[in-house]
């Protein structure tokens, strides 16, 4: 499966991307990376390694200082604002700091993602109910997001990212505040999305438990550089990674 996917052009391609925050904080240095359609990629690394920065670059929240980022073969730097907005509708992002509106209800927060695509009210209602069941938040439908626990807010952020069944989903620490059982729910949601809708998923995480037993690609960032291309269980894929340009 994955082998087939790799023969086509990657969904995301970073070519020697450097990100320097002012004044001179180097968050990423000459990072090159490809993410293929339908793949699940785990991004690991110590705190401050640049995981969030990398995700922000892909969704155009930040611009790279140097290097080229292509999504679906298009250079992000050359896409005009309306194009960026259209692209963002197809990218679901669960931010590390959630970026949810505390004064609005859980349902309203999730609905926002679908409203910007002019989805029908009914479709929105049904999708929200479905997501809340999957994430065990059904009783929180009309609660204000600000009154939720961190772990609950985190799941709301993920639900919002998944609402449109996006082509690409970026999840920044989606399980940081969750217990084992709830982490399971989140993983199941992501896997389901990947299998049913073919969503490409990039997960930035510290949590070894969520990638240890999978055969998905894992990439380790260290001080803004890629240090290890590895898959913990399947040697077949290690070979493939080594074949990629460094």
């Amino acid at each position, binding site marked *: 499966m994955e082998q087939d996917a790799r023969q086509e052009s990657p969904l995301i391609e970073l070519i020697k991307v450097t990100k320097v925050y002012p004044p001179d904080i180097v968050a990423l240095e000459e990072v090159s990376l490809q993410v293929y359609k339908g793949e699940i990629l785990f991004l690991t690394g110590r705190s401050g390694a640049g995981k969030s920065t990398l995700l922000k670059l892909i969704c155009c929240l930040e611009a790279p200082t140097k290097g080229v980022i292509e999504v679906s073969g298009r250079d992000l730097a050359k896409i005009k604002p309306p194009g960026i907005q259209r692209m963002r509708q197809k990218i679901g992002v669960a931010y590390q700091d959630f970026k949810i509106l505390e004064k609005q209800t859980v349902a309203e927060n999730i609905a926002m993602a679908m409203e*910007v695509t002019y989805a029908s009210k009914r479709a929105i209602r049904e999708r929200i109910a479905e997501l809340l069941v999957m994430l065990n938040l059904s009783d929180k439908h009309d609660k204000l997001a600000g009154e939720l626990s961190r772990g609950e807010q985190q799941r709301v952020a993920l639900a919002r990212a998944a609402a449109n069944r996006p082509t690409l989903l970026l999840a920044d620490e989606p399980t940081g505040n969750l217990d084992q059982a709830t982490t399971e729910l989140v993983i199941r949601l992501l896997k389901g999305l990947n299998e049913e809708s073919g969503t490409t998923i990039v997960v930035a995480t510290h949590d070894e438990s969520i990638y240890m037993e999978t055969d998905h690609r894992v990439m380790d960032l260290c001080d803004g550089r890629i240090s290890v291309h590895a898959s913990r269980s399947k040697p077949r894929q290690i070979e493939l990674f080594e074949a990629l340009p460094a």
Partner: protein
Amino acid sequence: MEYLAYLLRQTGRNIRQTWGTQVMTLLTVTLSVLIFSFFFLVYTNLLKASERFGDELRLVVYLDKEIEPQQQPQVEKKIRSFSEVEKVTFLSRADAFARLQAQLGEEQDVLADLGPDFLPPSIEVYPAKTLRGLTQINQFSEYLQALPGVAKVQYGREWLERFGSFTKLIRVIVFLSGGLLIISMTFIVSYTIRLTVVSRHSEMEILRLLGATSAYLRLPLLLEGVLQGFCGSALGLFSLFLLYRWICDHFTAPGVLRLFEFTFFSPEAIALILLSSILLCSCGSLVSIRRFMRI
């Protein structure tokens, strides 16, 4: 269809969120339109009235002595040589006396002692419609005055001059209140829209991250301005109409207003006022959108 539903829902939500200010804005727009359209209405009626006076305008040339009937064509030719004239009527002493008698009707006894010769002979000159300006009429009257045998030329000059300067004054007020209208509308509307933008700032940031197009974010704000312009001006015009009806009911019977034959705006003028208010308010909201919303 879904687009329209979204647009209306969002606009409604924005207005609800800042409804106190919305009401203030609506009142301001209403008041500005009321003030402006009041003076504009007075002005258009003055113009109409002056047109009517123009139709009735005539210069009366009083003569020292009667003109013999055979001389009349020559005199008329002289008059016509200065300017286009619609009609020239020659009145002998007897004609003038007869006319006065007719006008007085039953009270013609007062003329008994005066005898048929007390009124001077005269020529009545009705200038052509092209001769309109007060200065042109003045020149014409001076020309007539200079003709041999002319004692005096009369045409209600003072009255016309006063009416003319009053019309000018109203025109200035119309311009001033129009300026006020433009300023108040654009400022107040851009202020309210700014409030909406600020109150929804964090939400808009997030919507942007979620891929909201600028149409999604901006159209509701623009529609808010359009609605303010439409509702405000409609309300202003409606209040003016009520005022107009009240004036008509109370002041029609005798006197000056009857002379003016006050009329309300034509449908075209109403449409023009509505449209320009909408345009101004949209400009106000565009200003705010451009200044306070970055996307």
